[in-house]
């Protein structure tokens, strides 16, 4: 059965997976559904609809809901969970079965939520997860006694080792026909349920645990007043250096492959429109973007591993003070760090921030975090204009410039946050309340699924948005043809040349030539398209020799250093990206905030580029 068919088939029972954050819920979901899952938007933290199929017993549709501590929703993502399980969600149907995931090493705490969920009157199964960790911590739980007391089936599972999965599937399948849990009153307030949960947990627990000592030992190092912050900044620095050095070899390979294809086509096909379409349009345009896949995957590898090990919450703890100084909250660090990969999942992850004004501020500054789509832009310009040498022994100058660009983005984000919190998003600071989960070795499955999703989305973008805008640009760059006796390259007489000359009036004060001006337009679709567009424009206006030399060499000859620096400054703020604008509209519920965001980013970008260009010209002039 295909995913789509099953998903739209109302006869397939729906199982909602619910649990506290850090109960191994997503790991269990991944183990049950594997790659038969559909992520409606982005991987990473559970911020969007994740569904999947269990084939076999009963054909179940699983929905992974955002982690929540209770049905008193404190934040936008907890509210999604509340709406779905209570059947009040706009699109999602009320689930037929609730799979409540419980961390066996923290039974009393997680049981409270189970008692709250069983009041909903939906058939329920409890997965007692992480039983391997519980055994290691010498916790022993009497499962039949627990099941009898709460009146629902309890299955022991170890998601990461795929233990107990067939029993769980069978229990879920049985539950679709079972009645709702019996009517036992475990209390109506948080306090009463907490008390009941602790009583049940203590009678069902045969031996108490010793706690996770390793976690406390690691925290003594990683949350040490000195070593902690140093480690965090070291990790971030390593992340950005790795993006450069590790990706070098695979990127060279992809580049050589594209160059080989271009030469192959040039030698085998006759000169003409079709050859130009292949070489100048598709290969120069899409190829210029695909080459960055290794860098984007390395960046996501770091983020997914940090998330999977439990370090991300520690980073939020260390950053809270700094964030508080601009009126934000340590929790905002996680969406902002995700925004380094892409602002879209970052803006969605802001749902975990309870306070509406804090959430709005986080959304508005997320695009200032240098996203991976800007990497291609930075990489090409740095490779063309910054000498590849080392400073102070081992630190590469190119990597250092990259780090400075990221830092500039971060600093402007902090300044903007402080400004926004004092003006449009004024209000009292939110609380900061965050569980620091146990350290775990990175869940390879979680990381691989995340990377696979990321590569798929990136290549799909390259194959659709980027391909289409590249083709459109190529067509506009070819027609109309140059008049007889033309002195300039043919492209100057084309539509692209005309649009570029018109826009150049606006961008000339910041040092942009007409080629750059025109590249900014398709760059609206996605930022990296600006590089693809430059590839196409310069490929069409240059000679064979220049094409073979690659975009880096072309730019080095065509641009002055002040122009290159101005272009970099522009992209720190880069107001254009349709997906970011669209997701901001969806998350803020209107056009007001996306319009505000585009306007302020444009002003910042133009101002920064103007100053950079003028100062650089003056210094070098």
């Amino acid at each position, binding site marked *: 059965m295909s995913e789509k068919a099953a998903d739209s088939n109302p006869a397939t029972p729906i199982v909602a997976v619910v649990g506290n954050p850090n109960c191994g819920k997503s790991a269990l979901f991944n183990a049950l559904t594997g790659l038969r899952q559909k992520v409606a938007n982005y991987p990473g933290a559970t911020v969007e609809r994740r569904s999947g199929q269990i084939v076999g017993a009963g054909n179940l549709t699983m929905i992974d809901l955002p982690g929540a501590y209770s049905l008193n929703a404190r934040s936008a993502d907890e509210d999604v969970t509340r709406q779905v399980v209570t059947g009040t969600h706009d699109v999602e149907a009320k689930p037929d079965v609730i799979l409540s995931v419980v961390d066996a090493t923290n039974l009393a705490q997680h049981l409270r939520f189970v008692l709250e969920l069983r009041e909903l009157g939906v058939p329920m199964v409890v997965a007692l997860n992480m039983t391997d960790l519980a055994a290691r911590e010498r916790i022993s739980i009497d499962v039949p006694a627990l099941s009898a007391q709460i009146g629902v089936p309890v299955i022991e599972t170890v998601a990461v080792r795929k233990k107990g999965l067939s029993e769980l599937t069978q229990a879920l399948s049985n539950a679709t026909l079972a009645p709702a849990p019996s009517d036992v009153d475990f209390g109506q307030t948080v306090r009463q349920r907490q008390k009941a949960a602790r009583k049940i947990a203590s009678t069902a627990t045969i031996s108490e645990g010793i706690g996770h000592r390793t976690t406390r030992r690691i925290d003594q190092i990683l949350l040490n007043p000195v070593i902690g912050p140093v480690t965090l900044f070291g990790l971030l620095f390593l992340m950005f250096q790795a993006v450069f050095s590790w990706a070098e070899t695979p990127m060279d390979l992809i580049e050589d492959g594209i160059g080989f294809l271009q030469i192959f086509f040039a030698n085998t096909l006759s000169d003409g429109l079709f050859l130009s379409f292949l070489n100048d349009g598709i290969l120069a345009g899409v190829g210029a973007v695909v080459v960055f896949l290794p860098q984007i995957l390395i960046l996501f590898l770091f983020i997914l591993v940090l998330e999977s090990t439990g370090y991300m919450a520690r980073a939020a703890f260390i950053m*809270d003070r700094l964030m508080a100084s601009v009126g934000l909250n340590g929790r905002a660090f996680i969406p902002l760090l995700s925004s380094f990969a892409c602002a879209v999942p970052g803006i969605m992850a802001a749902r975990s921030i309870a306070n509406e004004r804090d959430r709005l501020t986080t959304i508005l500054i997320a695009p200032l975090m240098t996203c991976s789509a800007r990497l291609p832009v930075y990489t090409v310009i740095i490779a063309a204009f910054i000498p590849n040498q080392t400073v102070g022994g081992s630190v590469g100058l190119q990597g250092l410039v990259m780090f400075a660009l990221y830092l500039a983005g971060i600093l402007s984000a902090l300044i903007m946050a402080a400004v926004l919190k004092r003006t449009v998003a004024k209000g009292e600071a939110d609380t900061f309340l965050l569980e620091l989960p146990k350290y775990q070795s990175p869940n390879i499955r979680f990381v691989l699924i995340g990377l696979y999703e990321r590569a798929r989305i990136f290549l799909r973008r390259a194959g659709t948005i980027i391909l289409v805008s590249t083709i459109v640009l190529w067509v506009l760059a070819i027609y109309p043809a140059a008049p007889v006796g033309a002195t300039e390259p043919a492209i100057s007489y084309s539509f692209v040349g005309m649009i570029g000359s018109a826009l150049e009036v606006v961008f000339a004060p910041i040092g942009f030539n007409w080629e750059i001006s025109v590249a900014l337009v398709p760059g609206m679709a996605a930022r990296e398209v600006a590089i693809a567009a430059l590839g196409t424009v310069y490929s069409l206006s240059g000679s064979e020799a220049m094409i073979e030399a690659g975009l880096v060499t072309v730019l080095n000859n065509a641009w002055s250093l002040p122009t290159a620096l101005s272009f970099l400054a522009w992209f720190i703020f880069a107001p254009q990206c349709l997906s970011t604008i669209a997701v901001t509209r969806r998350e803020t519920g209107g056009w007001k905030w996306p319009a505000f965001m585009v306007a302020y980013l444009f002003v910042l970008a133009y101002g920064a580029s103007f100053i950079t260009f003028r100062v650089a010209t003056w210094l070098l002039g």
Partner: protein
Amino acid sequence: MTSLPSSKPLGNCKPGFSGTISGFFSDHDNVESTAVEQLREMGFAEGLQVSILHQNPFGKDPIAVRVGAMTIALRRREAKLVQVTPA
């Protein structure tokens, strides 16, 4: 809420403090504030062992506390709602 003479707000304690949660500070005697409810939902409860493991190096706030089997990070302002008795 009865408060024992030796009890004090968790938010005023230093790293290394260890004790037991004896109650919560609420504005009203019968209705618990949302902030206290949220602390309960996160895992704070009467009778649990609590200790301060770490504090943020920049300004001693927020703090990381061990409650039962969990470690929770929170700001001192919220931690002041938790009433503790030193061990």
